[in-house]
């Protein structure tokens, strides 16, 4: 979906979101008579230090304003940009900084919602979409951690064997459906199901203070163990006298 169409569909009550440097979007919009901040990345642009620091700066400005404005992050990025120069300059710090800033906004009372309308992969996915409290994927979005040919190369499995395995488990397959099964994507919105704006208003009106993605992953059957393991660890940690042994 083109950014202009997406903005029109999400914010029929009005917005002033405009393109910024480095294929970013910035502005405000009205949802259910309330003002929300809107940030975005467009055109499947790889996440560079420049984009990460630009977006992080916007978010810090919103936090500093002190209004607890909800933040909607529109995402169509590729993976992190893959250059020697970016890694030399500490790309991990720039992506980590962006993830921290978005997380801080959530912790300080800003409702943060990611809307994935294009691609997102690998580290860029972690630093943007997955750093929001609630991630919505539009029908037709295509998130991936790693594409199947790359997985085939690393695991030394033939691509057709890998494709066949992907059909029976969501654990490594790219796409919205497997990532929803993981609990990564809270809701998938299809245009056929009606206008997007009321659905966005509903999501913005709910609170989300805890990370329950592993619970969702267990309920949906995509990650059967993660939540249970985390709970067992916490139980053992809080009662150190029982069930632990020194090795």
């Amino acid at each position, binding site marked *: 979906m083109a950014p202009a169409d997406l903005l029109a569909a999400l914010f029929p009550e009005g917005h002033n979101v405009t393109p910024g440097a480095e294929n970013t979007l910035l502005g405000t919009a009205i949802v259910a008579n309330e003002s929300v901040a809107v940030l975005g990345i467009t055109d499947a642009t790889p996440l560079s230090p420049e984009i990460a620091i630009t977006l992080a700066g916007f978010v810090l400005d919103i936090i500093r304003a002190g209004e607890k404005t909800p933040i909607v992050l529109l995402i169509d990025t590729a993976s992190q940009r893959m250059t020697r120069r970016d890694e030399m300059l500490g790309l991990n710090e720039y992506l980590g900084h962006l993830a921290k800033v978005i997380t801080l906004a959530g912790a300080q009372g800003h409702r943060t919602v990611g809307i994935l309308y294009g691609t997102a992969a690998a*580290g860029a996915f972690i630093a943007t979409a997955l750093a929001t409290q609630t991630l919505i994927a539009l029908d037709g979005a295509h998130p991936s951690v790693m594409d199947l040919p790359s997985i085939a190369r690393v695991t030394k499995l033939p691509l057709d064997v890998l494709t066949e395995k992907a059909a029976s488990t969501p654990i490594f397959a790219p796409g919205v459906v497997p990532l929803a099964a993981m609990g*990564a994507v809270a809701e998938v919105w299809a245009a056929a199901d009606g206008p997007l704006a009321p659905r966005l208003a509903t999501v913005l009106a709910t609170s989300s203070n805890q990370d329950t993605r*592993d619970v969702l992953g267990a309920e949906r059957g995509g990650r059967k*163990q993660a939540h249970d393991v*985390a709970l067992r660890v916490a139980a053992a940690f809080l009662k150190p006298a029982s069930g632990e042994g*020194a090795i």
Partner: protein
Amino acid sequence: MIPKNISKAASWYESSARDRINGLLDHGSFREILGPEAGVISPHLALFDLPPAFDDGMIIGRGTMNGHPVAIAAQEGQFMGGTFAEVSGAKLVGLLRAATAAADTAQAVSTVFLLLDTGGVRLQEANAGEMAVSETVRALLEARSAGIAVIALIGGRAGAFGGGGIVTACCSHVIISEQGRISISGPEVIETNKGAEEFDSRDRALVWRVTGGRSRALLGGADSYVKGDVASFRQAAAVTRNTLPDFSLATLDAEQKRLEERLNAYGDCRDTPEIWARAGIDDPKNVSELSDDAFIALLAEKGHAHGAR
């Protein structure tokens, strides 16, 4: 060249994850959680005909450091590259959440030590691994918000790559040795995607100049540089608990400024000696040849010490 007096000491790089834990904590104080006897192994590796490990390459628990209670997690870089996966990730996430929940109780810990040794997300469990990284970031930042220091220690075979690089950047403090490497896309990945002219992964000196511990420490991506023996890591870990940034708007404002300044100052450089020359370091090409002692002295004079992470 390895000096004689160091070669006798246990090397962090050569040690297993369990040996690193035992060398870091007070002798005999480690209490493992979900240890091998619990049989919590990856349910997904069999699909790929791969043998599992008892701990899924993630060893977690609690212990003491100079008598103070701490939590600890160590990745075993030799098993599946120390990767983030469903079980290994959930163990780390559970530990971080537990440390937060334990704040102000009798089970409280002051610090979580993350002994990172990872190639990133385990591709056989790519989606679960990606979620594990994201949940680790969230749980780690909640621990920091609760006043718990989270300290990364990096100097293992696998480095801190992929999501491990992002997790590193979210920690309160990063301790690294010369052998430690931090990056998101590894050199091989960049070479595969962009060609050897972009990043020649076989040029080991180049790889180390770009991702290695000395460059990270000089530029500000790591906070403490230590010699590569276990005792040096322990010494640094024991003293860094008192001076750590809180997870706050002020800290992240300072980090924003720090990272903007780095881009402005060095954004057009192609290799680290260019950066070092611009930073006023004499003989910039020689940084990787210095002895550890000489490098530590250089770092004290020219490094980007900061409290913005």
